[in-house]
């Protein structure tokens, strides 16, 4: 290929984005890895890793994040599944318009929504510090509920209605048809929804901060290392989170919807 006249190819259009991804996605992860396994003097060390798993405080934080995330995901699922199911079964000409009512909050700045929630909770509870775990779960549920409703609604409304009819024709009761046909077939949406709620609920510590929560989740640890300029400790936490996220993503990939639901309702 002559150097002076570079022919236009469609493939070449990918180069800027590929370079961008290498610079701002791949390179930060490499650096994260390096910092996680070195100390302040640049020497290789496992101290950050063993430090995390031998400190009862950080291990407690890990367990607490799992508890908060599990509870928030369960509550979201218990609210979102019936919501999505009832919405998809509404006898209305335009279900999408009604769905939008339940999706719209995701476009309002989360910090303003959580501020509003905080005011209401303060009015109801008085001292927010007395109900830290419950408030953490309420806050996460309030923040992430739309992200659970959307993918479940999408899968249920795409289900082939004739399958349900067939089940009924073959003698299944309404509830049997639901549990043996609708529920299993809507699992991809449920898995996407769980991914959309569980991982942020482990990391989005600012929701807790805003609710005057002094309890720590995994994200809070990164925040406190960041505030202390401890890049090595913070990198290790980030790496551990990355591993958890990676495992969940691989587990979820088998069944989940391929489309992404983080704001996917725009389409």
């Amino acid at each position, binding site marked *: 290929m002559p150097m002076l006249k570079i022919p236009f190819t469609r493939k070449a259009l990918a180069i800027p984005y590929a370079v961008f991804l290498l610079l*701002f996605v791949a390179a930060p992860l490499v650096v994260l890895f390096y910092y996680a396994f070195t100390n302040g003097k640049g020497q290789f060390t496992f101290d950050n890793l063993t430090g995390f798993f031998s400190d009862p405080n950080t291990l407690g934080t890990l367990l607490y994040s799992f508890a908060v995330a599990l509870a928030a995901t369960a509550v979201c699922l218990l609210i979102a599944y019936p919501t999505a199911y009832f919405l998809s079964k509404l006898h209305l000409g335009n279900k999408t318009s009604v769905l939008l*009512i339940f999706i719209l909050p995701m476009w309002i700045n989360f910090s303003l929504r959580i501020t509003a929630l905080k005011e209401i909770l303060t009015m109801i509870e008085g001292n927010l510090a007395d109900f830290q775990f419950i408030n953490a779960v309420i806050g996460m549920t309030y923040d992430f509920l739309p992200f659970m409703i959307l993918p479940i609604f999408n899968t249920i409304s795409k289900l082939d209605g004739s399958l349900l009819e067939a089940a009924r024709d073959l003698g299944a009761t309404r509830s049997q048809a639901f549990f043996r046909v609708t529920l299993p077939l809507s699992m991809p949406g449920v898995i996407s929804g769980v991914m959309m709620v569980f991982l942020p609920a482990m990391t989005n510590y600012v929701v807790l901060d805003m609710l005057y929560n002094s309890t720590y989740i995994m994200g809070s640890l990164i925040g406190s290392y960041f505030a202390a300029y401890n890049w090595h400790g913070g990198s290790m936490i980030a790496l551990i989170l990355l591993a958890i996220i990676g495992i969940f993503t691989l587990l979820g990939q088998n069944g989940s919807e391929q489309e992404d639901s983080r704001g996917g309702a725009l389409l």
Partner: protein
Amino acid sequence: MKKYPIRVIFLLIVALFMYAPILIIAVYSFQDSANIGTLGSFTLKNYVKLFTSPELRDMIIGTILLALISAAIATILGTLGAVGAFYSKKRTNSFISTLNQVPVVNADVVTAFSICILLVVVFGIGKDTYIPLVAGHVTLCAPFVYLSVVPKLKQMDPSIYEAALDLGATPAAALRRIVIPQIASGIISGFALAITLSLDDYFIATYTKPATFDTISTYVVNATKGSYTDIKTALWALSAVIFVIVVVIVVIMNVRGNRAEKERSVR
């Protein structure tokens, strides 16, 4: 609907949970009271403060500018990347799609922390240059643009591009006049998605922003930690304004979407 009153009641309760805090805040934004629960007299002072305070004005304009600039860059990069990857070899394509997926599934706090380490700690780029902030927001948004353009490329009829070439169009012209118009809806929804992601972001901004700059999210989070009641109530007014803007945009998009759908079904 008459058949399932319980379903409708359930949906109403969920909607109430989602909207009650924001609506109560909106009502209190017109009240001369800094505490929810105690009614004062009607006032517009919160709105006056919101629109006249230079601090609040700078913060709102800064947030919008940041969103527009990073969404524009993200849209160009993500669209080029999607088109280029689509026409590349399978290996290049899957390499780009895999890297693209990382910021999508990753926790925002991990993305933010890793970009902060790479750009600020390793490369020593000052946060005051705004480079880490914009780079971070583009990293957050571009993958979603990519994801909303790819399906449009897959839906495209490849023979039209070939036909344009056969009829004498240069590849660049064929791309501009054949491919881009066909994927335009994906580019536009990607851009809109990028804007909403940037507006809603807290973590990237916190870890990469200059100390003197605030987005709505970082400002609100810091304000809830302080106890300045006049700022607190001015932010209630901001919540009400943003709520109204989001509702108006969603209603307009929905009406236009319905109309387009009707036209399609008529044809």
